[in-house]
């Protein structure tokens, strides 16, 4: 019987798990549940898993609402990779848009949010719950967010 990853042993990387989700709000929950299942098997704490669910939710929702906006039959591609104690989740959409790189570093300005401004809440939340995050984009191909959380 094939053993799943154990946090107590160093093993080769598992084969990535890939999801191709319809670009429709609500499907982010499929990604959240899948990542949470893998994270639980890796031995992540419940609070880390809850944070990871939020990060994945924001990344997939961002891909649906912004990256794939206006594209018919678009998909969101999610790749989950386990390597050692690291869980990596990549979320890719199909349309390149330049990100506002200033977003997500500082705590959202609630006073501005109270005035109805977009303050980059989603990107900031992602940063709070993962060890590494990187946004990249290739013109003509799409945007990708790569998130890494390590099991301590």
């Amino acid at each position, binding site marked *: 019987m094939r053993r799943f990853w154990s946090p107590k042993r160093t093993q080769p990387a598992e084969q990535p798990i890939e999801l191709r989700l319809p670009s429709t*709000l*609500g499907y982010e929950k499929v990604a959240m549940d899948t990542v949470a299942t893998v994270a639980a098997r890796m031995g992540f704490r419940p609070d880390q898993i809850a944070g990871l669910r939020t990060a994945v939710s924001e990344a997939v*929702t961002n891909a649906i609402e912004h990256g794939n906006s206006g594209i018919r039959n678009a998909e969101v591609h999610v790749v989950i990779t386990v390597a050692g104690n690291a869980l990596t989740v990549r979320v890719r959409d199909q349309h390149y848009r330049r990100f506002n790189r200033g977003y997500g570093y500082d705590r959202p300005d609630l006073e501005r*949010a109270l005035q109805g401004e977009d303050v980059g*809440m989603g990107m900031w939340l992602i940063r709070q719950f993962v060890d590494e995050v990187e946004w990249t984009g290739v013109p003509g191909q799409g945007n990708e967010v790569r998130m890494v959380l390590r099991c301590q």
Partner: protein
Amino acid sequence: MAFLDDTLEVTSRQHGKVTVIDIKGDVTTFADAKISEAYTTATEAGAQQLVLNFHHSNYINSAGIAILIRIVTSCGRNGQKLAMSGLNEHFQKIFRMVGLSQYADIYETEEQAVAALSS
């Protein structure tokens, strides 16, 4: 609407002078109309103390937080007191991180929130 969207139920009830708005389901962009309608109805009925009760809600995203920010803003503008209850530890943490707790007190239970607003 995708089949994965949970049915969201938003209902209101009175605890003395406190209006409790129960939110059952996902607090995402789809929750906007129902939560806003419940708040507007309560306000038009003269509510001055409100509790948003999330006891049956396990998923709140940034779009949902934006809805709550608008409710907080409206409460401030209308001179209403607002409290929140029933949030699990993760969302209590997020609300504190974001700063929402500066504008609305957060309580573990509905009873605690109602008691605080009634005092």
